[in-house]
């Protein structure tokens, strides 16, 4: 990402928010994939570091970027080595730290200095676990059906917001343009929809 864009690297190292946001947007999905799916470490005797759950995935992504975007890490990054494996190594090491905490028996796990390398290769080597992830989660399926039922009850504006903001994953600014309203309005409707869905699920005993 930085190889052909010296200006971006300079802005990134200065902590320019737009530059940080660009880097985040470029890599967040890959970091989340690694956090969600986990990986194996052949160097430690085929140890499988399991992926995090929903909350854990979010925490790992946040921790990864918080570390990567700290002033120390930004200024230390030389712009020469590829940023992707550098970033994924942070995620990987955070997961190993957690693994060590969870599995006292795994004291032998070594933190290697080698980057994660090709993520696709790692994921391909974990087909067994990936397959397991695809197994339908009954609770999730039930919640999803209830959520769809809830969305069907919404007014046109709220339904459009669900489509654009959640299904199409647009930013609040882009949604505001498409809906021809202010960003504040988008935020208000977004909060209301989420809050109402939570209440809907609670009323049906599907959520604590």
């Amino acid at each position, binding site marked *: 990402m930085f190889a052909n864009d010296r200006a971006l690297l300079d802005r990134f190292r200065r902590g320019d928010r737009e530059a940080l946001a660009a880097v985040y947007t470029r890599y967040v999905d890959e970091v989340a994939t690694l956090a969600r799916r986990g990986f194996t470490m052949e160097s430690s005797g085929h140890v499988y570091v399991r992926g995090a759950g929903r909350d854990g995935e*979010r925490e790992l992504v946040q921790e990864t970027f918080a570390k990567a975007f700290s002033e120390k890490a930004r200024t230390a990054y030389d712009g020469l080595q590829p940023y992707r494996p550098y970033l994924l190594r942070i995620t990987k090491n955070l997961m190993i730290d957690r693994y060590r905490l969870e599995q006292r028996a795994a004291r032998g796990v070594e933190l290697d200095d080698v980057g994660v390398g090709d993520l696709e290769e790692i994921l391909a080597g974990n087909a067994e676990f990936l397959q397991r992830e695809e197994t339908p989660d009954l609770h999730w399926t039930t919640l999803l059906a209830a959520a769809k039922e809830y969305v069907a009850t919404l007014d046109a504006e709220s339904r459009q917001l669900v489509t654009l903001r959640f299904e199409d994953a647009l930013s609040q600014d882009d949604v505001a343009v498409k809906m021809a309203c202010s960003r504040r309005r988008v935020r208000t409707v977004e909060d209301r929809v989420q809050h109402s*869905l939570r209440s809907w699920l609670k009323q049906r005993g599907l959520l604590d």
Partner: protein
Amino acid sequence: MIPRLLAGRDRLSQVEKDDILASVLAGVSPPRSRVRWWMGFVPAVALTIAIVVLAPWRSTAPTSELAARGGGQPFAVFQPSCAGGCERGHKILFDLHGTSGYRYFAAFSKRPDGTVLWYFPDQGQDASVDLVTQPQDGVLDRSIVLGADHPAGVYRVHGVFSREPLTREMIRAAFDETTLSVGPGTQVVVHELVVR
């Protein structure tokens, strides 16, 4: 989970991504700004402010540590913490020592699943805490007990500082996660709190 259900995919949703980015950027030291032409006037302006603030004809009535303290730059400081660790049954304390220029304080946190837990104001119709009535040491005289509504995880605790009292509804309507503000004369400070 709620944003994922609305997206129909059990993957990190755009809403979650936006929240994470806002949190990360909030913790990043601000970029060094370039020297501007008007910065040459800063010493003179600072001197003027100092004269006004420290002028002998101003009231000498004692003020609370937490209350607005004159015409300087408002400063919002707060640190949530738990005596004896943040575990079920323990209390979250709010240390606002060092705050100046703001009179009212509200607080809420976001659970890892995105649920918002209101701390202050206590009730929907109440207004934020008047810091003038609070102890001099800067620690709020009220705390939050970690109960069943606080499962283990990383919470983002938001402290909302303002010059005017605010209700939950006012904060909810005006809260901007990007600028960490709920409008003019306010500031929102976010800290992470790990509940075990």
